[in-house]
């Protein structure tokens, strides 16, 4: 019984942890532009993150290798270094975007000046990371992030045309403006399959000392947790499709997104949406900050891990402190966090193959994985998604330039 309870708690944390600023921005913008027409892309993206999270969680449990350990081993030093640099740049951009999102949300809640709130947000993150144990960080942010479920209630209250919603789940292409549609599809896939999620997931599994006994938890967390996380993405897109599209509103501000919950549900809806956003984005900021430190330490062979205590993994600790400071500096320049989010998601798509190829190779290596190596289902899905990722990573930047970031 205790075990089932633990599994359920882990799943809840995964749902809350799925959504970050990239998901919020792209799902809302996609809904406001194409209504429900891109829902099927979210399903595709969620399938991808489930496939690769399950794989790297399994690798972490069986061979105790986190992602950048596998990258160094499989790609070697020189190519691995390219992967590391790409991952670190994308990670830092994502971290900065999340920090900006925290400050924007705090501003909507308090009305205080934006730059002061950036400082407050970053200090709060540093203290939380320093003081709270690993499991607590994941749970507190995951659970409170579940306030975003208010968008599911909002979506229902807005009485969308459910027939149209159902049609959105059927894969199709918009023929009127295929390029903008393609840009949003790429963004949604990137937001769902954000690379930091796999870095964090696999390193977290090693931190928590998973063994092959935990493979059930791994499957449940990946499939149910991320699957239901995708449900939050649907809710955001349906809300935007039902509310913003008919009014012709382009949600360029985070406050507009929260409006999606306020219009049907009033003040309580607004507050739940903002609190949910704050914790979802705050949790993602911590995940990205740690991911950057995990990657560097794993590539160079340093001691790493929150569970070791700050002083026992000193260069790891130093790295996340530096990353947090860099993220702070980027946002303090006054760059628009929403724009930063779009860049971080699109560039992360370009860097995705570097992360996923080594995972697929290690998960297939019988000398490390023995009987837990990939079976036919994992390999079929793995190869399918690798193909999707390759196509998407090659088209991401051309689409961004051709559509002027989705402006048409």
């Amino acid at each position, binding site marked *: 019984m205790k075990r089932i309870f633990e599994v359920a708690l882990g799943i809840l944390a995964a749902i809350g942890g799925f959504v970050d600023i990239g998901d919020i921005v792209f799902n809302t913008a996609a809904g406001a532009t194409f209504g429900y027409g891109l829902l099927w892309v979210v399903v595709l993206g969620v399938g991808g993150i489930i496939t690769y999270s399950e794989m790297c969680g399994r690798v972490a449990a069986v*061979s*105790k*290798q986190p992602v950048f*350990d596998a990258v*160094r*081993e*499989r790609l*070697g*030093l*020189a190519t*691995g*270094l390219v992967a590391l640099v790409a991952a670190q740049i994308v990670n830092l951009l994502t971290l900065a975007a999340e920090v900006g999102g925290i400050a924007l949300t705090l501003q909507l809640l308090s009305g205080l000046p934006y730059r002061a709130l950036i400082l407050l947000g970053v200090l709060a993150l540093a203290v939380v990371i*320093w*003081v709270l144990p690993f499991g607590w960080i994941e749970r507190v942010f995951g659970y409170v992030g579940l306030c975003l479920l208010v968008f599911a209630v909002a979506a229902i209250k807005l009485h969308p045309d459910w027939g149209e919603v159902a049609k959105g789940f059927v894969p199709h292409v918009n023929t009127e403006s295929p390029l903008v549609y393609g840009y949003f599809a790429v963004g949604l896939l990137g937001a769902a399959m954000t690379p930091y999620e796999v870095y964090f997931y696999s390193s977290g599994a090693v931190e928590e000392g998973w063994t092959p006994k935990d493979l059930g938890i791994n499957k449940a967390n990946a499939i149910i947790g991320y699957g239901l996380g995708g449900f939050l993405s649907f809710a955001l897109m349906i809300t935007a499709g039902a509310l913003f599209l008919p009014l012709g509103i382009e949600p360029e501000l985070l406050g507009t997104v929260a409006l999606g919950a306020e219009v049907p549900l009033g003040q309580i809806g607004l507050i739940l949406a903002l609190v949910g956003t704050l914790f979802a984005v705050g949790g993602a900021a911590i995940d990205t900050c740690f991911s950057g430190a995990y990657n560097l330490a*794993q590539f*160079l*062979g*340093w*001691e*790493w891990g929150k569970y070791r*205590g*700050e*002083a*026992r*993994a*000193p*260069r790891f*600790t*130093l790295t996340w402190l530096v990353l947090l400071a860099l993220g702070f500096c980027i946002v303090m320049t006054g760059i628009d966090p929403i724009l930063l989010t779009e860049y971080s998601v699109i560039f992360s798509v370009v860097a995705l193959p570097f992360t996923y190829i080594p995972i697929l190779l290690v998960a297939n290596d019988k*000398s*490390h994985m023995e009987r837990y190596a990939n079976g036919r289902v994992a390999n079929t899905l793995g190869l399918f998604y690798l193909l999707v990722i390759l196509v998407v990573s090659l088209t991401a930047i051309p689409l961004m330039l051709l559509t002027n970031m989705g402006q048409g």
Partner: protein
Amino acid sequence: MSTSGELDLAYGVLDHQLVDSEGRRCGKVDDLELEGKAGAELRITALLVGPGAWRGRLPGPFARLAGRLFARKLVRVPWDVVESAEAAVHLGKTASELGLGRGDDRWRKRIARIPGS
């Protein structure tokens, strides 16, 4: 080491994580030292660790850049200290006995000064 008794140096040892006898992560296998000559038996004598070991594996300009940025520090870990080579390479001595993990040692004291660590 695989069950067949063969050891794949390229995928089974090079670029793997080093773990000392106390379970501490202490660097990567950045290069290998081999003994022998063409046509004769080749023997692995040591693992090489540190910037001085990996620098030469990067393409020219990057190797020069790395040479400017990092000290040419290189630690030689005799092959007979290696206990097992699986996903990680496990060593039979502690990192400090072998001269590994010095970077972490240097930063440990400074980080420990921050309250709550």
